[in-house]
């Protein structure tokens, strides 16, 4: 990955009707990166994406694309293209006319644009669909057309606004893989917006976690999962136990906890706490055990159904147990618990 800046967002703030939706956002996205803005609805991620596209203007701050300040430039002259959540395919045009739209308004000759549109359709595996109307396509096919319509223009940055949100789970997983493959193949920067953490983890080089108009953390999926910078990140990504121990707020991943019977001796170098089992949920590959510590804190423990867990695997509600973890798996959270 080259370290040239594709998108630079500096000091951007925005409010709508007195409500601040973005506070002083600073973000650098590199050329060729698959970058995801992840956050709950209302976190400001879509507004930020729309600002890069040119549909919204920031109240303060600048947005640059490859070093070019585009803050005041309108959408139709920016070298970016968007895949919309509702696909926004033109209903009165067939598939190939939709795909070649950007080339058509740019004045590309008919044979040229037909050829390039066909290539883009081939890339999303829709060769035979050129003459169909959007209304005759399934949701997944429309999504592919929207993608082809955007990438045919060879934008310097592709913006994707929850493009898989309307698809069912299986199709969504297929498309995740495919989007990643296409992004690698064409090598352009993807700026992706989603509220689905699994989707973000599966595809992204880096993720920005957004909450209430601020960026809580930027990092690789692994960094964000294993070293969450705030209680919000810890609870938003995966499930996390947030405990207060010796006056410090710490986060513990459920799969890093081990249950032991009270009589057994804990593994070398682990911290243990006595607890009572509150509930056991059998999920197949794993079991989820809810326990309560002596100080009243509730924890979730996920035990792998790998046959190695021993007798602690068959605990039941009301049993007394020990919860054990390695000290390095409990990490301090930067800010106070919200």
């Amino acid at each position, binding site marked *: 990955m080259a370290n040239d800046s594709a998108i630079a967002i500096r000091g951007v703030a925005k409010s709508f009707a007195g409500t601040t939706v973005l506070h002083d956002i600073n973000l650098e996205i590199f050329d060729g990166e698959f970058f995801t803005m992840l956050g709950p609805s209302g976190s400001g991620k879509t507004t930020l994406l729309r600002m890069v596209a*040119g*549909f919204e203007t920031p109240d303060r701050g600048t947005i640059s694309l490859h070093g070019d300040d585009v803050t005041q430039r309108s*959408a*139709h002259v920016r070298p970016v*293209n*968007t895949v*919309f959540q509702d696909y*926004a395919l033109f209903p009165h045009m067939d598939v190939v006319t939709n795909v070649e*739209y*950007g080339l058509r308004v740019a004045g590309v000759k008919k044979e040229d644009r037909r050829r390039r549109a066909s290539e883009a359709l081939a890339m999303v595996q829709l060769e035979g669909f050129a003459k169909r109307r959007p209304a005759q396509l399934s949701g997944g096919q429309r999504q592919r057309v929207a993608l082809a319509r955007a990438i045919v223009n060879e934008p310097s940055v592709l913006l994707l606004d929850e493009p898989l949100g309307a698809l069912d789970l299986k199709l969504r997983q297929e498309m995740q893989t495919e989007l990643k493959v296409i992004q690698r193949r064409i090598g352009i920067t993807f700026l992706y917006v989603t509220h689905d953490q699994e989707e973000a983890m599966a595809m992204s080089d880096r993720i920005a976690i957004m909450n209430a108009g601020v960026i809580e953390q930027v990092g690789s999926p692994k960094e964000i999962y294993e070293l969450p910078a705030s209680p919000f990140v810890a609870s938003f990504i995966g499930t996390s136990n947030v405990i207060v121990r010796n006056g410090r707020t710490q986060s513990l991943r459920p799969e890093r906890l081990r249950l032991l019977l009270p009589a057994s001796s804990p593994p070398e170098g682990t911290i243990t706490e006595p607890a009572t089992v509150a509930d056991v949920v059998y999920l197949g590959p794993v079991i989820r055990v809810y326990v309560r510590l002596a100080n009243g804190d509730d924890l979730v423990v996920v035990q792998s159904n790998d046959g190695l867990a021993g007798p602690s695997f068959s605990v039941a509600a009301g049993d007394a147990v020990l919860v054990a973890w390695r000290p390095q798996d409990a990490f301090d959270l930067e800010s106070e618990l919200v």
Partner: protein
Amino acid sequence: MRHSRLSRTALWLWVAAVLFFLFAPILTIVLFGFDKSNVETWPIQHWTLHWYSVAWNDPQVRSAFALSIKAAVASTSLSILLGSMAAFGVHKARFFGRDSISLLLILPLALPGIITGVALNSAFQWAGITLSVWTIIVGHTTFCIVVIYNNVLARLRRTSSTLLEASADLGASSVQTFRLVTLPTIATALVSGALLAFALSFDEVIVTTFTAGAQNTLPIWIFGAIRLGQQLPEVNVVVTMVVLLMFIPILIAARLTGSDNFAPRVAATRKVTTAP
């Protein structure tokens, strides 16, 4: 919803009665147009096409017909221009008094024709404008605008705003977006609105009475001829032709506005009725 056989039969009878009530008078007129006698008695004794030739060769009918077409075409064209512009304005802009303007635009359709007619007549008199074909056109435009405005506005509201964003995102200027996306999107709404406006203008009597000069439009001629009672068979023929002529644009208009959602609705209904 499922009905018992009895209630379904009753419903059909009711529908048939309503349709009969609506269309029997028109059918009567059509039939008497073929009656040789100029005194209308039932049953018809001698059938003839004579009155068709009379109507065809009547210079008064011809000039009235020409005037009606002229007024309808002109007021429809004017309404397309003004009505769609108003719809775009109200749809896109957010300004103080927007809803009031929307209401004022729709008002002429709800207002009794006699009020529009009298008001226009006084206004023209006061301004010293001689009543002519142009005053008829202005009068008709007041209510034709509404049809276009409503149709276009409804379509704009149903159209996803991301279509326009997508067009801009793909590099289209606002002129290109209008030509390639907006216009095709509202085209059927515009055409169906225009056909309805044409039909409204073509058979209008009351406003025309107050805004017409010496010339007669076709409905005014019909009205006058019925009052005089000398040319009833010829009137029947003219009315028959007008009905046929009006039926076509209204049918096309209904098809165009319904084309988006009519088919699925039919399919859905069928599914319900065939359910066990």
